[in-house]
């Protein structure tokens, strides 16, 4: 039997090594590797920067059985370079028939439900290019660390390795949203203070 191939597409501007998307995607890919899949990692932003990078990436897409796209939510959707890459994939028609597709997405808000529209866009993309949609692991800002996340990734890897949809695993939140907002607001102020910009955080440089 041919060894199945999984391709991780990291859609964060911070790259594979330095991003939460890369770390989370890597966690899933490691788990798939332990289950016998051959794996490969690609940084989408890097791929769309040059025609050679794009060609290499499309080639990898063309040989993979399972694509896992891992990214941060950007303005309710994907970062622009990821959309550009998906447009290229759709135009190229190079992917395998019945290739499978799953998503890992995390947003900067405590409510993971804010990822839903982006997940629907991913599902629609899969449908347009003829890939089989296997679902998403969606995380809010509070949920990227901790035991329940590890459990979700283990169970997702188990399913994906068999070509089955990502199962629903409840991921525990560790902080109420109001406390996240309070702590987050303090964090912005503290970072700005270090930069010497705390007094200008509400600046309006483009006011008429």
């Amino acid at each position, binding site marked *: 039997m041919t060894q199945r191939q999984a391709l991780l597409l990291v859609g*964060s*501007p*911070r790259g594979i090594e330095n991003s939460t998307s890369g770390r989370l995607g890597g966690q899933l890919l490691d788990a798939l590797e332990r289950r016998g899949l051959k794996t490969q990692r690609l940084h989408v*932003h890097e791929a769309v920067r040059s025609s050679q990078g794009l060609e290499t990436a499309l080639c990898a897409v063309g040989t993979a059985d399972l694509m896992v796209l891992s990214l*941060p939510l*950007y*303005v*309710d*959707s*994907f*970062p*622009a*370079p990821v*959309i*550009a890459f*998906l*447009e290229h994939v*759709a135009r190229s028609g190079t992917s395998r028939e019945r290739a499978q597709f799953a998503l890992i997405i995390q947003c900067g*808000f*405590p*409510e993971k*439900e*804010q990822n839903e*529209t982006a997940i*629907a*866009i*991913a599902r*629609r*993309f899969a449908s*347009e290019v003829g890939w089989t949609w296997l679902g998403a692991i969606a995380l809010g800002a509070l949920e990227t660390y901790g035991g329940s996340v590890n459990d979700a990734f283990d169970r997702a890897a188990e399913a994906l390795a068999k070509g089955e949809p990502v199962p629903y695993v409840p991921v525990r939140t560790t902080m109420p*949203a*109001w406390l*996240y*907002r309070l702590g*987050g*607001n303090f964090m*912005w102020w503290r*970072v*700005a203070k270090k*930069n010497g*910009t705390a007094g*200008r*955080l*509400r*600046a*309006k*440089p*483009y*006011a*008429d």
Partner: protein
Amino acid sequence: MNAVVLDGFLDETGQDALAALRDALGSARFEVEVIALRTKTIAPCVGCFGCWVKTPGECVIDDEGRDVARSLARADVIVYFTPVTFGGVSSELKKALDRIIPNISPFFAKVQGETHHQKRYAQPPSLIGLGVLPTPDREAEALFKTLVEDNATNLRSPRTAVAVVALDRPDTFKEILHGLVEAVTR
């Protein structure tokens, strides 16, 4: 009042719909600025949050993305004009949208039961979403509407109107586009 149209087409497709949009905005006495994003050099957002904590209100990348953000901050109405792409917006439009987060505040607020960001400017623009498809597609239309409404919540737009036109139905453009403009001006 002024309207800034973000033309997210990758090519000249959709120009008939754009002309009808100009007519509709002109009839409502808008000053119209159309930004053909495909002609603009706008680097991808690098996710550094510098626009919030280093140079508050302005992106740290000095390119035409700043010009777009400035125009949008001063607009009464923003129009997304885009081919509906997997139910969402095109990469050309998105490259601009990813770079307008300096126009909102980093500080969080509870909005409609969810966490979003506070306004930076007292009067954010209203938002029109005009998607274009080759032929009618209900699923893609519904998804596009949801996305634009989500964006309006994040941008804190006071009024939102969304529609999708099909290129094979040019006879419908006028009525749909006048309806869109009316919805954000009444």
